[in-house]
């Protein structure tokens, strides 16, 4: 295969750079078969145009993103706080304030005969809420009695009649007395919500001791979170 003929076979004398190599443009001229003295000016012009285009392109690359790019800004807000130990107890039900208000020729005599009067099984409803483990306790003060009579505080008994969340303590699923200091009745190892505890109250009666008159005693329920 013969090499293409042209002036490339007799190129102008190439220029050499400081390392003795043929200058780039001259190499190009020498390599292009049809290149010659006339075409050299065309190539130089072409390279100038390419350089100019590259400068413009570079400027565009630098400037364009700054104008066209999306921009964003962020801000962060922290939500939270420290939740304290919380619990609450709500007392409802018909209560026992009138438990000893007996009727003559009826419930009064019957109660004395059987030795006690008792409330409905859910006369007192304790509704418990806690956000961690807790316990429920009860205590009483002393009877207020007619005259100088001093009714025994042990004549008051209470019991839990339903099966609320938690573990019965001190056998309060049957009648127990209370003292002047808290006695634990129910406890649980975690929080609870709307935990209803039904409490029944019994007051012992004695024909010979319990004289007519107004009686009262206060039961204090305490719910507390525990460790």
């Amino acid at each position, binding site marked *: 295969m013969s090499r293409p003929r042209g002036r490339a076979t007799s190129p102008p004398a190439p220029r050499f750079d400081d390392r003795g190599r043929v200058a780039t443009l001259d190499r190009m001229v020498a390599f292009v078969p049809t290149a010659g003295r006339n075409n050299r000016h065309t190539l130089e012009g072409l390279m100038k145009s390419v350089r100019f285009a590259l400068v413009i392109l570079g400027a565009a690359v630098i*400037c364009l993103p*700054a*104008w*066209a*790019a*999306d*921009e*964003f*800004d*962020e*801000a*962060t*807000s*922290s*939500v*939270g*706080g*420290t*939740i*304290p*130990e*919380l*619990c*609450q107890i709500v007392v409802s039900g018909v209560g026992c304030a009138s438990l000893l208000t007996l009727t003559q020729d009826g419930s009064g005599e019957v109660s004395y005969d059987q030795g006690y009067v008792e409330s409905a099984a859910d006369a007192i409803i304790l509704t418990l*809420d*806690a*956000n*961690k483990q807790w316990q429920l306790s009860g205590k009483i003060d002393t009877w207020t009695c007619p005259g100088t009579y001093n009714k025994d505080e042990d004549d008051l008994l209470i019991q839990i009649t339903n099966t609320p969340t938690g573990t019965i303590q001190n056998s309060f699923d049957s009648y127990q007395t209370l003292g002047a200091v808290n006695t634990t009745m129910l406890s649980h190892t*975690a*929080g*609870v*919500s*709307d935990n209803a505890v039904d409490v029944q109250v019994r007051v012992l009666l004695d024909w010979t001791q319990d004289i007519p008159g107004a009686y009262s005693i206060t039961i204090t329920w305490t719910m507390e*979170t525990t460790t």
Partner: protein
Amino acid sequence: MDRRWKRAVWVAVAVGAAAAVPARATELETTPTQLVVPRLAVLSITGDVSQLLTFTQDGAGESAYDAGAVESAADQTVLTLNANDAWDLSARLAGNWTCPGSYNKPETDLYIRITNTPTGTIQNGADAYITLTSTDTMVLSHDTGVTDNEVEVQTRIRLDWVQDIPGSYSIPITYTLTVHVP
């Protein structure tokens, strides 16, 4: 000297004097000025909800648990937006709840909503309480720039007596204002 010659001499003198006075030079130059304004976004946040769960005993704490949630004030968080092109506002959870002990409070217990009527279009029902995830949820957008556009955000956290034990809680919400092609 002839009168004509005198006049000619005076004219010549006048012309010479005029030529001796330097002409006033005037040059105008123009400096081409090109301003390249990029898209700009500035989002600022005010308000503190970092203590929303810090309750008082025998008071707000029990009430909040009974209600099942605690809410911030309607304008407790205020985002102020400035943008010079179309924009959208997004929110995401930048992390999970930090909880006491080993408890893992669900991230869906946190809600936010926009309570005022800022410039823009509410997105994804964010004018009612919505939950957030770890990816951006767009809550507001607009197709032109705005200045000092205040967005009031209310925060709500669900509470459960049984689940939400005492201790310190925190979760970060990141709001992002993005300015983009309309």
